[in-house]
């Protein structure tokens, strides 16, 4: 029992949950317990979007130093827009819309990888340049129209049972599946190996390039899923709907205990970090902090968390 507790204490992701709980307690202490449940429901809903794109970002970051996907926000916007436009507010076209958004996501992911692999562009610049093109495509395609989601999708993304949002249940199941894939499957072990030493992985017959390709496509596809859900949840796509997920997706991965140097992924930590980030903003709002103070506090707390949790020991 104590051994298990000690192991838990050493898990890098535990601190994000401790932080989330502490922030939640501080908030309800301030409101004297009022709205405690509602805050949890809202946090679970909003955390889902961050968790989904954060998972994609985590896979990319795990494949090694310098790997990061900056095209996630633009992909969210493009895929959310494509889905809503194809669905055309009709329940019967939902499946077709999802397929179209997936196709768009797969194209973006493939192009990202093509730039990295064949033009040898560093991933940061490749995905950044790609995000410009994707964002422009979204603007040209959407032309600023706000299309409502089909009623079925709207009901699904905003529905809950006893305060537990349906999308949160699905996202938790998804996270469990990803946790198994990352920890137990050949793919998961291979991307960790690639992240630790790509050449060694290649010499050990790991299909390095194929897995790298799969990872970038996975990240873009997850951004597509996030785009569909977010467009449904917020009553239609908007051109800036993805913008907060640039910092969000990276921050939750790192606060959650995934190694930025690659080679070590942490799936549960993403949940803790996403809840922590949302609850932090809620707490500062509850305290009546102005926008400026909210930003400063958020930034300082993020830095404090990773400074205390500690960086990588340079043992390798």
């Amino acid at each position, binding site marked *: 029992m104590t051994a298990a507790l000690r192991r838990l204490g050493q898990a890098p992701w535990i601190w994000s949950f401790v932080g989330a709980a502490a922030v939640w307690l501080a908030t309800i202490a301030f409101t004297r317990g009022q709205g405690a449940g509602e805050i949890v429901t809202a946090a679970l809903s909003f955390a889902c979007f961050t968790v989904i794109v954060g998972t994609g970002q985590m896979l990319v970051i795990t494949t090694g*130093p*310098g790997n*990061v996907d900056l095209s996630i926000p633009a992909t969210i916007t493009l895929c959310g827009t494509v889905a809503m436009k194809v669905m055309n507010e009709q329940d019967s076209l939902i499946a077709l819309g999802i397929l179209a958004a997936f196709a768009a996501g797969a194209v973006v992911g493939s192009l990202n990888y093509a*730039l990295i692999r*064949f*033009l*040898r*562009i*560093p991933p*940061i*610049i*490749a995905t*950044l*340049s*790609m*995000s*410009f*093109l994707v*964002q*422009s*495509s979204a*603007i*040209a395609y959407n*032309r600023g129209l706000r299309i409502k989601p089909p009623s079925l999708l709207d009901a699904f993304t905003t529905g809950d049972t006893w305060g537990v949002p349906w999308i949160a249940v699905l996202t938790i199941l998804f996270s469990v599946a990803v946790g198994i894939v990352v920890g137990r499957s050949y793919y998961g072990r291979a991307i960790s190996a690639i992240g630790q030493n790509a050449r060694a992985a290649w010499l050990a017959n790991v299909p390095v390039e194929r897995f790298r390709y799969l990872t970038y496509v996975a990240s873009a596809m997850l951004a597509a899923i996030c785009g569909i859900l977010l467009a449904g949840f917020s009553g239609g796509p908007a051109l800036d709907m993805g913008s907060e997920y640039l*910092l969000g997706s*990276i*921050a939750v991965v*790192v*606060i959650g205990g995934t190694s*930025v*140097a690659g080679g070590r992924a942490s799936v549960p930590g993403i949940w803790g970090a996403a809840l922590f980030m949302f609850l932090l903003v809620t707490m500062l709002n509850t305290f009546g902090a*102005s*926008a*400026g*103070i*909210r*930003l*400063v*506090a*958020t*930034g*300082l707390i*993020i*830095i404090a968390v*990773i*400074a205390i949790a*500690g*960086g*990588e*020991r*340079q043992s390798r």
Partner: protein
Amino acid sequence: MAAQALPRLDRELLRRALPAVTLAVLLIAIFVKQPLAMSQFGLTLMLQYAVPIALATLAQMFVIAVNDLDLSIGSFVGLTTCIAGLYLPTMPLVGILLLLLCIAAYVAMGALIQLRNLPSIVVTLGMSFVWGGLAVLLLPTPGGKAAVWLHDLMNVKIPGVPFPIVAAIVIAAVVQIGLMHSSYGVVLRGTGGNPKAVARAGWSLLKTKMVMFGLAGTFGVLSGLSLIGLTSAADAHIADRYTLYSIAGVILGGGEFIGGRVSPVGAVLGAITLALAGSFLIFLRISPDWQIGAQGAILIIVLALRAVITRGSAR
């Protein structure tokens, strides 16, 4: 085929010349499309914002040279314009003190990253919230004004040559000499190239990192000052795009993300190229929808050319 026939030295030369060639091609394209732009007035107007962008790009370059990345430079430049706009005209001493504090914060950021061995992406990401928040606290709505001397400095008229070009040459020369041709500059770049070797030779990695982040902060402040000299009003979000511009500028200018391989002259050329690309797209009458996309495409084309040139010599 032609690239394969080139000996190694020529390839390296071509690679170094690429930022200048890119800029030249862009300039020629602009003049062909819009001959009126080829005047002192036209060039000054098009290159106006090249100076603040070049300074921000150099700030980013110092950070990239030690294998880190600064995702906060855009909001930092925004904050410095707010400080300069609020205090420099009326209470110059307070203003200068606050700007020095900003630089000190950058030094502390470098120290924290080195001491705790933290990922710079996350620390600077967090700091971008802090800078942005402080700027909004200082100046909730756009306002303030440029100090008279700043405004005059940024609007100097030199007969025959556009001021931004002169300023860019001076800035590039100073940094090039300081970082590439001085002995301490070699140690500073070595921190990115081979930190273990630098540490074993008795240099403090903590100190070199603090110096590089201090330089980045200093150039960020200079970028903010030159920016408000041009706009005459400050705004917390005025320079948000500079984060992406500065990273792209360093890479366009021939810098690499890892290994301390950077080029100050190249970075300035890259920044000017980015500043001009916007004007070129307007001259081409590209629909506003596709303007951001076209900038992404330009970036990809230049990097593709670099890949073709260096193919073979990289491994």
